């Protein structure tokens, strides 16, 4: 039987005796005394034992000891029902707290359930069950329907649908087929697949997420540290006040009133434990982090939740954050040649390079490149590519490249344009576009609705493209043609001009975003396509790369902070009210315990509300 169940039985037994005592008190005070004593012993046995043990360890301000004094003290001054009631209510409160903490620990550890226990590794024709830690990159694994994908891999045979909700918060199953990447931690739904492992377990997605979530609870928010410090002083202060209250007034009012003042002092002891605060504040942040995870947003620490709630400025990187980061040919503008000629020449030249823009051109061409026609490939950073195609000198790149070759290109080309020349003749240019993410506009809308004062976009791309993106998405301000160092200095500028309680959020994905992510108040990285450096430097990771999740994260942080504040004020208010009423002799001991337990229960329930956050 679990220790919680045992405790519940003890409490019920004590409660029964207590009730019996109340009834018997009507007839015989002496017998009821014994019954209440039995109730006290059953209900308080573990408390008394702990109290004694802890005194020997030098711990005087231990809540077990203080509660024991309160209960026994009540008996000594003749208030037996009160003494028994105090112990009973205290135990009920403790049990409920244990239950609530257990429940929230379990619900976050159900996130931990994404940990795969085994991998089916194929060696030749045989399949063996192995520990995911032992599987090597390049091994082939088999994943049956219903099983969890154990490692990051690429499908080599079969097709299926995957449930990625534990990684991304998305409930819609994803279709995957040969050649598609699958992530560890997702659940294989429909088909049997074979896949080639691409990352070792320790580098796999599921490992990284587990690490992040586990470490998240370690970074404490300022409210948490405040409460811990408060608790350190609160208990001794209340106890000292109790001692003074018990013995000082009788000196003036006469010793006959001693038991009255002792009673009031015992009431103080009952409220000397700040448990409601010490539990509910971390619990709130823990729930906030859990709620974010469920929505596909990984928050690396409670302090980030605190900061995010104060966000007033959101700065975006463009490529990969607001746009998909995947370049595509959008238009061909020719100059005395056919479109197919322009494209073919460009594709052959660009096949020399791996730059995303070059890749988009060769992809648009689609046909196989005959390498024998190409020679003398040369890539010039910041300019473009030159090569000899069929012996003729050809070039593909920006206006700088064309000017350096003395070729008159179309200077009116706006946006990202790849100008092409062959044999000194200008063939025209190809326009490349980067698709804006479908939810980028909604993302900005939602942020403004939340009260974000300024949205800014920083990019190294051209002004025309930046303008277009800014217009389409509704961003307030943008700065284009920036070098990575410019992004850093621009962000530093904005942070300096911030008001005291307003925070700046930077959202990015690339390697060059890492320094800006690190220096912003809150750095958010795109977790799916984002670079490891960005994810490492950030405070929050969005698993689905959707910018609209930023507002989700802000809403959850705001809710969390709100509930933390509610709990702190409520708990402090009730405690001080009871202290005053107790000192004045208005509040009874059992009422004080009731209020204290009640506050704990309400604070904990309030904190658990955060877990239920839904879009």
């Amino acid at each position, binding site marked *: 039987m679990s220790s919680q169940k045992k405790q519940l039985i003890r409490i019920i037994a004590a409660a029964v005796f207590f009730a019996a005592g109340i009834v018997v008190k009507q007839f015989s005070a002496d017998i009821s005394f014994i019954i209440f004593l039995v109730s006290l012993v059953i209900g308080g046995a573990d408390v008394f034992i702990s109290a004694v*043990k802890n005194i020997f*360890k030098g*711990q005087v301000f231990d*809540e077990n000891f203080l509660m024991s004094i309160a209960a026994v003290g009540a008996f000594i001054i003749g208030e037996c029902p009160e003494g028994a009631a105090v112990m009973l209510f205290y135990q009920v409160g403790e049990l409920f707290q*244990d239950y609530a*903490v257990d429940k*929230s*620990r379990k619900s*976050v550890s159900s996130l931990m359930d994404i940990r795969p226990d085994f991998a089916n590794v194929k060696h030749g024709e045989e399949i063996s069950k192995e520990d995911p830690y032992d599987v090597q990159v390049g091994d082939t694994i088999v994943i049956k329907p219903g099983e969890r994908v154990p490692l990051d891999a690429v499908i080599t045979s079969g097709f299926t649908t995957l449930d990625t909700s534990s990684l991304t918060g998305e409930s819609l199953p994803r279709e995957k087929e040969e050649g598609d990447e699958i992530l560890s931690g997702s659940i294989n739904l429909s088909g049997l697949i074979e896949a080639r492992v691409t990352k070792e377990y320790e580098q796999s997605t599921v490992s990284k997420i587990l690490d992040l979530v*586990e*470490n998240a*609870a*370690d970074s*404490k928010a300022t409210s948490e540290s405040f409460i*811990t410090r408060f*608790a*350190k002083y609160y208990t001794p202060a209340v106890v000292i006040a109790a001692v003074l209250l018990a013995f000082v007034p009788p000196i003036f009012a006469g010793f006959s009133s001693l038991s009255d003042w002792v009673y009031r002092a015992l009431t103080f002891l009952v409220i000397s*434990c*700040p*448990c409601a605060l*010490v*539990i509910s504040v*971390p*619990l709130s942040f*823990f729930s906030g982090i859990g709620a974010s995870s469920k929505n596909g947003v990984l928050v690396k620490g409670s302090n980030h939740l605190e900061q995010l709630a104060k966000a007033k400025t959101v700065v975006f990187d463009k490529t990969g954050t607001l746009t998909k980061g995947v370049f595509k040919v959008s238009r061909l503008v020719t100059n005395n040649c056919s479109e197919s000629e322009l494209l073919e020449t460009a594709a052959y030249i660009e096949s020399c390079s791996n730059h995303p823009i070059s890749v988009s051109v060769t992809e648009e061409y689609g046909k196989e490149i005959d390498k024998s026609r190409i020679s003398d490939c040369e890539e010039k950073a910041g300019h473009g590519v030159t090569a000899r195609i069929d012996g003729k000198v050809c070039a593909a790149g920006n206006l700088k490249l064309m000017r350096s070759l003395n070729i008159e290109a179309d200077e009116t080309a706006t946006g990202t344009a790849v100008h092409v020349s062959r044999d000194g003749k200008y063939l025209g240019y190809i326009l490349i576009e980067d698709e804006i993410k479908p939810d980028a506009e909604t993302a900005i809308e939602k942020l403004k609705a939340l009260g974000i004062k300024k949205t800014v976009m920083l990019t190294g791309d051209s002004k025309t493209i930046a303008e277009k993106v800014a217009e389409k998405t509704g961003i307030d301000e943008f700065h284009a043609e920036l070098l990575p160092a410019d992004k850093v200095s621009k962000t530093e500028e904005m942070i300096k001009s911030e008001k005291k309680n307003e925070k700046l959020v930077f959202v990015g994905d690339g390697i060059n975003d890492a320094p800006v992510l690190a220096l912003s108040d809150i750095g958010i990285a795109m977790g799916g396509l984002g670079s490891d450096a960005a994810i490492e430097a950030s405070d929050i990771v969005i698993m689905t790369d959707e910018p609209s999740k930023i507002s989700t994260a802000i809403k959850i942080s705001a809710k969390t902070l709100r509930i933390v504040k509610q709990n702190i004020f409520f708990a402090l208010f009730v405690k001080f009210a009871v202290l005053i009423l107790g000192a004045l002799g208005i509040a009874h001991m059992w009422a004080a315990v009731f209020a204290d337990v009640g506050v704990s229960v309400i604070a904990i329930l309030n904190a658990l509300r955060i877990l239920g956050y839904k879009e």
Partner: protein
Amino acid sequence: MKKSFRLVGLDCANCAAKMENAIAKIPEVKKVTVSFMTTRMTIEANEEDMPDIIEKATQIIKKYEPDVEVKRG
């Protein structure tokens, strides 16, 4: 180096805070966090000092909550 432990049976939030403060006072400890919610304790210190620190930390933990089991994890 950083080492993590699970404090199985950690029941009292106040005790977790007191433990953290007490362990932080051990001179060789660079940083320590005890999270009541995840029952995890993470200690940062030099590799040579670790075994000694772990012993002292375990004593401190037993002092505040004798029923807690300190496990690797």
